[in-house]
């Protein structure tokens, strides 16, 4: 009897789960997301707030945030992936991020979790062509945190101090830029004490390649630096700008955008993005509210054959393909919470100055009412995404090296071009 009872209980114990018809229980076991991103105080404040809200909705989720400088983050992510210890999700500039897609290290978007039907539906929510860089084999591999282009910020006070009226005398061409900067620059002998404008050295793919394109040149994956004349002309312009020429600025001086917010008469113009507006507000509210700054379009050469503005670049949130499906899904949930929750894109824009190329945002009132958003939109319309193809980071270093060699070492621009083209072709062939 006893044996029969035990046997019956065993059968029931096996049978009940087999025929259970109830809903599948959600896995609520603890899950930890490692989120690595670059430093930005205003964005950190927003995202920390949203992470807290997200964790209240998903109490089993812990989010560890690692914030590093943009440069450091690029190295950190790469080293972590090399050792198989990458974060759950991260963001980098597209020129550094694209290789992760090609190498299969990041997962395609989880459309269902993000609330889209498929890739086409997702793409339809963004401005045409603006996130094509993360489309690979028909799938989308990242959602844009920001798409940024740089126009020219002007300090009207410094213009006035140099006897200029910023509203009318602002530079429309690169030749104007030289002329205006020559009037603004102050020197003690050879030593510059006030600059008109200076470039964003080390980001040559963003600011210098478009200057070459204006002159008819190109950078492409097959032929490298196309049209020697255009490249030499652009390099000659840079040589003329530096200490070997008119001595208007150079790469070893403090970055223009870092000085701009201080409004202490050191610099009149800086090449930077819409995000600078929120940084001016944070760093120097008096200057922000004074109305003594303005933004004008990216200049072109007088004899430009192509009307191109500075390239735009993107930071995309991407999910590590090596993580478990559950972790990936939760990472996409959090990304969705950051980027696609109603009102968040507007908060990113107003609080941090980051533009997500969502149709609803860019055609909406919040974006249109941002100071000088029309200038950035105009520059977006005549620009394209930064080169992010093969060897992007190495090519940027090679171009940067060519620019510095003509500016600082007085290398002949034609010789600098020859060396650059040789190096770029070697990088592309490698």
């Amino acid at each position, binding site marked *: 009897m006893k044996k029969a009872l035990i046997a019956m209980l065993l059968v029931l114990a096996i049978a009940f789960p087999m025929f259970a018809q109830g809903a599948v229980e959600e896995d609520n076991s603890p899950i930890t997301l490692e989120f690595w991103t670059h430093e930005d105080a205003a964005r950190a404040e927003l995202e920390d707030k949203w992470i807290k809200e997200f964790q209240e909705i998903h109490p089993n989720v812990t989010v560890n945030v690692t914030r590093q400088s943009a440069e450091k983050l690029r190295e950190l992510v790469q080293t972590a992936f090399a050792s198989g210890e990458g974060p759950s999700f991260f963001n980098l500039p597209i020129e550094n991020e694209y290789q992760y897609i090609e190498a299969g290290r990041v997962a395609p978007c989880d459309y269902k979790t993000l609330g889209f039907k498929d890739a086409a539906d997702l793409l339809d929510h963004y401005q045409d062509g603006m996130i094509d860089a993360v489309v690979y084999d028909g799938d989308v591999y990242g959602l844009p945190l920001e798409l940024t282009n740089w126009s020219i910020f002007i300090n009207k006070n410094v213009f006035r101090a140099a006897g200029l009226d910023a509203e009318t005398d602002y530079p429309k061409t690169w030749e104007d830029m030289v002329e205006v900067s020559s009037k603004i620059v102050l020197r003690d002998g050879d030593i510059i004490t006030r600059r008109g404008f200076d470039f964003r050295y080390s980001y040559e793919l963003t600011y210098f390649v478009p200057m070459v394109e204006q002159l008819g040149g190109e950078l492409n994956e097959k032929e490298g630096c196309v049209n020697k004349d255009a490249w030499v002309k652009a390099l000659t312009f840079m040589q003329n700008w530096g200490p070997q020429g008119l001595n208007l600025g150079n790469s*070893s001086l403090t970055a223009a955008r870092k000085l701009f917010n201080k409004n202490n008469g050191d610099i009149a113009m800086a090449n930077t993005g819409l995000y600078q507006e929120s940084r001016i507000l944070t760093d120097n509210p008096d200057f922000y509210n004074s109305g003594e700054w303005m933004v004008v379009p990216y200049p072109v050469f007088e004899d430009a054959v192509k009307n191109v503005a500075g390239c735009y670049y993107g930071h995309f949130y991407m999910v590590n393909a090596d993580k478990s499906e559950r972790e990936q899904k939760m990472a996409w949930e959090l990304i969705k919470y950051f980027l696609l929750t109603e009102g968040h894109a507007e908060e990113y824009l107003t609080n941090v100055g980051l533009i997500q190329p969502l149709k609803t945002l860019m055609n909406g009132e919040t974006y249109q009412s941002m100071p000088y958003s029309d200038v950035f939109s105009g520059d977006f319309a005549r620009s394209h995404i930064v080169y992010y193809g093969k060897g992007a980071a190495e090519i940027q270093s090679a171009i940067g*090296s060519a620019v510095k060699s003509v500016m600082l070492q007085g290398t002949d621009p034609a010789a600098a071009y020859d060396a650059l083209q040789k190096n770029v072709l070697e990088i592309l062939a490698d």
Partner: protein
Amino acid sequence: MKKKLTPYSIEKKQVRWGFLFTVPCLVFFAVFSFYPIISAFLTSLTNRDAIRRTYDFIGFQNYTYLFTQSNGGFSLLNSLKATAIFTVGTFVPMVVVSLILAVLIMQLRKPGHSKMFELAYYTPAVLSSVVAATIWMILFQPTGLFNQISNFVMHTSGKDYQWLTNNSMLRASTIIVYFWKYIGYFTILFITGLASIPPTIYEAAIVDGSSRWHTFWKITLPLLKPTVVLVSIMAMLQCLKTFSTQYMFVQGGTAREPIDVITMNIYYTGVVNRRLGRSSAMSIILFLIMLCFTYLQFSTQKGGDDVEY
């Protein structure tokens, strides 16, 4: 003739204990030095990329590439040149000046004075290299202290001596930073060496009527030979491994080529450009260079007489 150890002899016991005491050190060396060297060598024979999942064995192609191609504009040959200029420009003056400083400090009669100088010279060595380079970058700026001093000394006005933009000046700037940072460290090593020379030898020299100059060349320097060799090896190896100063300068916007020392090229090639195979080959080349120089310096020491007090 080889001495045969009898079982249970004291010597055998000592050998066992000796081996036991060296085991932790051997394990540490094997895990943290020997394994990475072997691993780097094996990686140098592949085309391993930091983020690609697979890689191939390519033999010595990375080595031939490094000696024949430009590595995207930042060739190994340029790095060897930059490293050689930096090492010679830093290591030779550093050894000579630290020796002179040590001798001068030892001449001070009041111990308080010598301690004060030791502390003053040693302080920069404690400072982080990154912080030191950042401070010096500010001093080398066109509006910085170095241009002002240069203008004062050279009786010029408003001249930019291009400490960060001219190739030679840029190299000199990195040498100055490194020299300033480590001179105290090597001075202390020399002071330790000098202190170990028995004063009776100097007393005998004084009795014999030897001049200070003569004493230095005939007594101090020969007896200090082991310290000189130690300091020169350490200083040279440290110079060959220099990184932070050059890296911070490049991050600050200076040109890379004139100061693209091997360690920095390894970093950019491997960490920034993801070419782990190629950067490992560079590491092995640097390792061999350091090995050769160390061997040469040890051989030089062996060639002379042993120092005994």
